[in-house]
């Protein structure tokens, strides 16, 4: 399948895909000769994807993490879970579509799934507010987590947000309090929590779904205290040029391997060759088997032990002298 909108550094991949597509179309009912010609090209395509993705720069990973064709929370919901029933609203102010959540089944077992939801087109993005939640989004998420706890059901979160929304209403209704409350409550929730950064993990708005027994990152996801643009603006008064953004992306150490090294995440979930956007089904299948395995480890633990270990995990984070 030729990817209509490829990322800049994917141009060689897109061109090769195009050539293969053209050949296939020319061949019509697949004459033997053309098939022979296509085979090495497809092999080359796989190699090319591997080569390019092996040497992604941190900034290129940011682009992959934000790519509009990348699977979003709803795409994983459709592929990993069955029997999903979406729950809406914070019971106080309004529904916030920047976060989706509800009951679902993982291999038949009930779980609570909560995730940031990006939009794929402008209309959808307006509805989802570019996956930048207001306080009511976080409060809905917390309501769902408490509901899960009440019925002894594990919580699975998917993190994919540029950050919490910085606007008038959000401030008036206590954006800080909403994020703080989630972080606090997640550190004492008596059911297993697994958080997965599937795309962009933007600062406090991400952490508000991120205090978990196991924290995972997809191979090309990023997780950061500030956007590369924000960092570049502060350091070099330049949030536009590639060079400046590249320096910021590198300095902030935001890729999955960085976060393993900094002991902030537990595991990297591999993506299909050439990124999760090339094969949603495969990306979802890998994540699914990882979630099942980790949930099996956590299910047997008593709530007190879960909570104690989760707190200890976060109490250990940070580096200092003395």
């Amino acid at each position, binding site marked *: 399948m030729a990817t209509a909108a490829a990322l800049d550094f994917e141009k060689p991949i897109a061109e090769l895909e195009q050539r293969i597509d053209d050949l296939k179309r020319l061949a019509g009912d697949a004459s033997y000769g053309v098939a022979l010609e296509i085979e090495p090209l497809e092999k080359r395509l796989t190699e090319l994807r591997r080569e390019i993705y092996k040497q992604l720069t941190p900034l290129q990973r940011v682009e992959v993490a934000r790519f509009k064709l990348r699977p979003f929370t709803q795409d994983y919901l459709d592929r990993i879970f069955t029997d999903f029933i979406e729950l809406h609203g914070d019971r106080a102010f309004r529904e916030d579509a920047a976060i989706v959540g509800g009951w679902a089944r993982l291999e038949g077992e009930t779980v609570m799934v909560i995730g940031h939801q990006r939009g794929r087109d402008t209309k959808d993005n307006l509805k989802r507010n570019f996956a930048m939640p207001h306080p009511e989004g976080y409060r809905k998420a917390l309501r769902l987590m408490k509901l899960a706890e009440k019925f002894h059901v594990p919580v699975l979160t998917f993190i994919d947000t540029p950050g*919490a929304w910085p606007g008038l209403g959000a401030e008036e209704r206590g954006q800080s309090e909403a994020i703080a409350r989630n972080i606090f409550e997640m550190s004492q929730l008596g059911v297993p929590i697994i958080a997965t950064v599937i795309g962009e993990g933007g600062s*406090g708005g991400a952490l508000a779904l991120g205090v978990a027994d196991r924290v995972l990152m997809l191979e090309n996801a990023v997780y950061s205290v500030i956007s590369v643009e924000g960092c570049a603006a502060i350091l070099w008064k330049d949030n536009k040029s590639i060079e400046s953004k590249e320096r910021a992306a590198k300095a902030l150490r935001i890729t999955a391997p960085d976060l393993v090294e900094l002991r902030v995440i537990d595991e990297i979930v591999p993506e299909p060759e050439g990124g999760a956007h090339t094969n949603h089904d495969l990306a979802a299948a890998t994540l699914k088997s990882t979630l099942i395995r980790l949930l099996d480890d956590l299910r047997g633990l008593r709530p007190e032990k879960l909570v104690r270990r989760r707190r200890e995990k976060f109490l250990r984070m940070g580096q200092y002298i003395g």
Partner: protein
Amino acid sequence: MAWFRKERKPRQPRREKLEIPRDTWVKCEACGHTDIRDSFERNLNVCPNCDYHRRVRASDYLSILLDEDTIDETETELRSTDPLNFPDYPARLKKSITNAGDQDAVITATGRLAGMPLNVGAMDFAFMGGSMGSVVGEKLSRLGQHSLEKKFPLVIISASGGARMQEGVLSLMQMAKVSAMLSMLAERRIPYISVLTNPTTGGVSASYAMLGDAIIAEPGAVIGFAGPRVIKSTIGQDLPDGFQTAEFLLEHGMLDAVVHRHELKATVGRLLRHMTGKPAATGWSAA
């Protein structure tokens, strides 16, 4: 980990190093009122003319809140490192240590408030904008552990622009770290009071600052998740007058009270007495 310092170094030298003469003229940033520094200081750096609460140092808050000669600073050995090899971070740290005269953006101490034992963490905006990195998180977390062991109430005075960018995602995780500690205090019913001073924004505001059993703020303090400039550029219009001030937050239900600096000690004391089942104090807190 030795909790208390073996020898108590006198606090005086740090202050003297930064000391400007007591009779220097000082001008109020808000109304322009001019007086000698000594007059401002005797008034806890609140402008005698317009009541503007001038920014003071973390060590000043310890003196404001705790009884004289009871302040025992803790965890003074913790130092920031440069876990990411972030551009210029070691140099900035060095400069901040020289300029601010402190080792990082929070001072933690054990002391007494009207005789009640208490743990206090005071953030210092003068040190890299009060930014929260690993040292801030670790000092507060150890202070909380000490509160757990001794059942001492905890007070954190915030003054911060948010997480310390130079420590990347590790500074983000300090939000979770300190909040995890607070959830342990809550479980054991040990009171935690959060005091917000100017400014309290970003990752500090979106974690421990907003988690107090009581949340009080100084008049006029700017408090919010996003900074005013970020919001302005997002919505493309000017912010309403008084937006994100302590009074604005009080009106919107985000604070228990806005408390004058002169009343801070008495208010914290009365709150703690209620929450720890002690009778009302006589004399000093009669107000």
